[in-house]
């Protein structure tokens, strides 16, 4: 496979969660979440109970992919930042380390300037955490919990 497997461990997850929790507070945001470029939700914070984070994750990744496609056609490396302004809600999307996507949803209690400022700081921290995570994943000798699964385990999934 071209990309190493995306893996999340407890230690890094907690570090990431700390960053997103803080970003919600410091940016006065409603919701902050992190998605990998393939559309898998990694972490979320804020008023997440009322929103469908799985769908948001997939659509955000689709959005970033489409924008990346446009960038390529224009011979740009990427468009790392996107901002969509609505009547009540606004969404700020930032590509971090060309690997994960940081999404901030905010309303009139915050401002684009504040969000951009806080996102910049959070991006640097997240970048460091994901780089460490990636090098950990690439270390040899990590046991996959799936190495031991049997045909029976797989069959059991499909017993309706």
């Amino acid at each position, binding site marked *: 496979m071209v990309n190493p*497997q995306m893996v999340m461990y407890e230690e890094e997850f907690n570090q990431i969660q700390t960053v997103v929790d803080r970003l919600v507070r410091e940016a006065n945001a409603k919701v902050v979440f992190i998605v990998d470029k393939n559309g898998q939700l990694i972490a979320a914070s804020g008023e997440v109970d009322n929103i*469908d984070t799985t769908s948001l994750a*997939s659509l955000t990744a*689709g959005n970033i992919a489409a924008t990346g496609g446009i960038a390529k056609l224009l011979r740009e490396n990427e468009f790392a930042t996107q901002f969509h302004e609505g009547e009540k809600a606004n969404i700020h999307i930032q590509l971090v380390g060309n690997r994960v996507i940081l999404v901030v949803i905010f309303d009139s209690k915050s401002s684009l300037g504040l969000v951009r400022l806080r996102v910049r700081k959070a991006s640097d921290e997240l970048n460091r955490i994901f780089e460490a995570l990636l090098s950990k994943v690439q270390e040899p000798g990590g046991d996959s919990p799936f190495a031991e699964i049997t045909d029976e*385990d797989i069959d059991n999934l499909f017993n309706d």
Partner: protein
Amino acid sequence: MSFINYMAREINCKIVYYGPGLCGKTTNLQYIYERTNPDAKGKMISLATETERTLFFDFLPLSLGEIRGFKTRFHLYTVPGQVFYDASRKLILKGVDGVIFVADSQMERLEANQESVENLRTNLAEQGYSLEKVPYVIQYNKRDLPNVVPVEELRALINPMNVPDFEANARSGTGVFDTLKAVSRLVLNELRRGG
């Protein structure tokens, strides 16, 4: 590329339905959505044109149950089939763990199927995957229609690698879950090998 989350004890995999325009990819997803227990599915999203042709993708998250204490989640995507949406198709293949090729069994779509398989091969290669290595199954859809090509003939033309294949009628649901189960099985086997 699957995503293993040790913290949430979850494993997430991406399955893509590929095939020529109007072959029934979205219909497959709609049937799965209708027939799945509400606890096991999320919302189905369709980014479609006003005439209900898929513009970018359809998306359906499914939970299959636990395996060795890990929740297995499959994210099902379709690509737009129309030839001119090729740029979008490439994007959706990023990070794919398994592919279902939905063939339209009607005589007049024979060439469209062959072109679409070739397009799949090319687009996978651009992402650094090869059709020979990625978990891959084929579905011969629309078997209920009168003007269909015999399965043997279809198989000879679009399944030279002899991957698992299934006859289906996605509208009534025949073969839909068999196809999905087959690719899921291949994806999980790939995970076991550490792929």
